[in-house]
C-alpha cells in the first residue's frame, strides 16, 4: 500500500503540471491588466492635463472669444437639462414595458419577439439613433405636428425635445432590462401573498412588486443617465448647437425661467468633439478640451458610483427578504 502510494507521488508533483499552472496564471493576469492599464493611462492623461483648467470661472462662465477662452457653463447646463428630460421620457416607458414583459406577457411568441427587439435595440450603433431622430422625430413627427397644429416651425426643427427623445430611445433597452431584472428578483411568493389577500394584479404590482424593485429600477435609471450624458452621435443632428450665446431658457409668463425644450443647446461631449476637430485654434483650446473631458468623465463616474451605492444598499435590504 505504502509502496504504491510512494510510486505515485512523483507524478503528482511533476514539473510539467506546475509549469502549466504558472504560465496560464501569468497569462490571465496579463490580459486582465490590459484594460486596467488602458483606463489608468487615459485617466492619468486627462487628470494631469485637465485638472489645471478646472476653476470656478471655467465651470460657471460662457465661452468667450470664439470659444478659445472662458468657461463651459452652457455645456454643463445643456447636459444636465437634456439627460433630465431624457430620463423623464425613458423611465415611465421603460418601466411600463418591463412590467408588461414580466407581469403580463407570459412567455409566448409575442414576449420573445419583444425581448429580441429590446436586445437588438441595445446593439444599434448610436449614430443610427441620431439619424433615426432626425428622420422620425424631426421630419416625420415634428413636421406633421407643425402642419396639423399650424405652429409654423416649432416642432419640425432640431431642438432639445427631439434630442432628449432620441437619447430616450437609446437608453430604453438599459432601463427595460434592468427593470425586468429588478421585477424578477421580487420573489413570486410576495405576489402570491398579496393576491391571496384579495389584491388585484395592479394593486399587487403597485403596493408590493414596485416598492421592492425600486432599488433595481433606480440603478438602471442612473446607469442610463450616465450612458445618455456621454453620447454625442444621437444629438449631433437632433438639437445640439456648435455655439449658442444664450442658455436654452424661456421665461414662462415672462417671469418663471424654465428650460426651453424647443431651443437648441450646447452639450459636454459634443463640445469636446467640436473643440478637438473644428476649433479656430485647436492647440490653444487644448486645456479647454481636457478640462471639459474631465468634467464629463467626473459626471459619469459620479453617476455610476451612485448606481453602485444604490445597488449595494438595496441588495442588502433585499437580502433580508426571506424567500
Amino acid at each position, binding site marked *: 500500500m505504502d509502496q504504491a502510494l510512494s510510486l505515485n507521488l512523483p507524478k503528482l508533483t511533476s514539473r510539467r503540471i506546475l509549469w502549466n499552472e504558472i504560465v496560464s496564471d501569468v497569462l490571465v493576469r496579463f490580459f486582465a491588466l490590459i484594460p486596467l492599464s488602458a483606463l489608468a493611462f487615459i485617466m492619468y492623461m486627462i487628470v494631469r492635463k485637465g485638472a489645471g483648467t478646472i476653476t470656478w470661472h471655467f465651470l460657471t462662465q460662457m465661452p468667450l472669444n470664439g470659444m478659445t477662452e472662458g468657461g463651459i457653463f452652457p455645456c454643463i447646463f445643456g447636459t444636465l437639462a437634456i439627460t433630465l428630460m431624457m430620463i423623464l421620457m425613458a423611465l415611465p416607458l421603460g418601466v411600463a414595458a418591463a412590467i408588461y414583459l414580466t407581469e403580463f406577457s*407570459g412567455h409566448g411568441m409575442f414576449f420573445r419577439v419583444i425581448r429580441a427587439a429590446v436586445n437588438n435595440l441595445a446593439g444599434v450603433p448610436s449614430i443610427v439613433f441620431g439619424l433615426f431622430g432626425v428622420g422620425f422625430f424631426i421630419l416625420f413627427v415634428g413636421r406633421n405636428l407643425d402642419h396639423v397644429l399650424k405652429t409654423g416651425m416649432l416642432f419640425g426643427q432640431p431642438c432639445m425635445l427631439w434630442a432628449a427623445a432620441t437619447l430616450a430611445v437609446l437608453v430604453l433597452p438599459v432601463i427595460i432590462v434592468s427593470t425586468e431584472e429588478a421585477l424578477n428578483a421580487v*420573489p413570486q*411568493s*410576495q405576489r*402570491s*401573498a*398579496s*393576491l*391571496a*389577500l*384579495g*389584491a*388585484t394584479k395592479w*394593486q399587487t404590482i403597485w*403596493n*408590493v412588486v414596485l416598492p*421592492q424593485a425600486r432599488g433595481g429600477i433606480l440603478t438602471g435609471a442612473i446607469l442610463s443617465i450616465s450612458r445618455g450624458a456621454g453620447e454625442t452621435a444621437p444629438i449631433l443632428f437632433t438639437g445640439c448647437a456648435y455655439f449658442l450665446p444664450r442658455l436654452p431658457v424661456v421665461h414662462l409668463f415672462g417671469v418663471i425661467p424654465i428650460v426651453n425644450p424647443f431651443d437648441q443647446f450646447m452639450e459636454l461631449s459634443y463640445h469636446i468633439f467640436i473643440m478637438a476637430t473644428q476649433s479656430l485654434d485647436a492647440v490653444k483650446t487644448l486645456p479647454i478640451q481636457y478640462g471639459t473631458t474631465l468634467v464629463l468623465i467626473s459626471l459619469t463616474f459620479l453617476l455610476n458610483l451612485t448606481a453602485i451605492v444604490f445597488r449595494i444598499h438595496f441588495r442588502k*435590504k*433585499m437580502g*433580508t*427578504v*426571506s*424567500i
Partner: protein
Amino acid sequence: MLIAEENQGTREKIKMGTRTLAGGVLVDREDVTLNPVKIFSQELDMFYGSVQALHGITMEIKERAVTALIGPSGCGKSTFLRTLNRMNDTIPGARIKGSVKIDGIDIYEPGVNVAVLRRMVGMVFQKQNPFPKSIFDNVAYGPRLHGITDKAVLENIVEESLKKSAIWEEVKDRLDTSAMQLSGGQQQRLCIARVLAVDPEIILMDEPASALDPLSTAKIEELIRQLRKNYTIVIVTHNMQQAARVSDYTAYFYMGSMVEFGETRKIFTNPVKKETEDYITGRFG
C-alpha cells in the same frame, strides 16, 4: 391536593352505590361531524394545459373543522387546495371542470369576483412570506387594500389579528420594526395574522410548518386548533403526524385522485383502503 379531595368525593359516591360514571369523561376531539358543509367540490377535474392534475374530486369540507390533505409529492393535494381560492388562475393554461361550491355558491361562476373570494378564503403559504414592511403594515395590508384608512380602526384590526394568531405578546412593543427581523416561526404566525386581518371564513394552509423548527411547528399546530373554533381550515401537509394531531378530517390523495376521505381518527387507526394504510404506515412504494 385538590385532585385527591375530589377523588375522595367520587370514591364516597361509588361506595354508596352511585354507579353513574359522571366525571372523568373521555375528552374527545370535539365532534364536528354534525357541522354544516362549508366547501363542496363536485367531480372536480383540473388541467394544466393538456396534463390532468386532478381527477374527479368530490369532497365535502365541514365548517369550523380542520381538514388535512395528505399524499406523496405531486399527488395533487396542493393543486386541489389552490382551486379553493382560485390561486391556480394565475398559472397560464390552468382550467377546471366540475364545480367548487362555498356556502352553495359556485366560485367558478363567471360573475364571481376573485378578489372578494380570496378575502373570504385566506391562504397561508409553505414558506413564510411577509412583506419587507413593518409588522403593522404587514397586517394592515389587506384591510388597507379593501379601503380601510381610519388609523384607529386599523390599529384595532392589527391588534385583534395578532392576538388571534398568538403573536401579539411577542411583537406588541415593536409593531414598527421590520417583519424581516422576526424568526421564521414568528413570521409564519404574522402571515396568519395578515390573513385573519381581512376577516376570512376559510383558511387554506399549504404546508405551513414545513420550514419551521419543532417548537415553532408545535406553536403553529396549537394555533390551528385554536383557529378551528371560528374558521374552516384546510391544510396540506407532508407530515402525517401533523395531520393526525391537528385535523378532524383527512383526505388521502394519490396521482391526482382522492383515494380516501374520512374522520382523521378512522383514517389513522383503521383506514378503509389498503393504499391509505400503506401510505400512512410508510409502506408506500
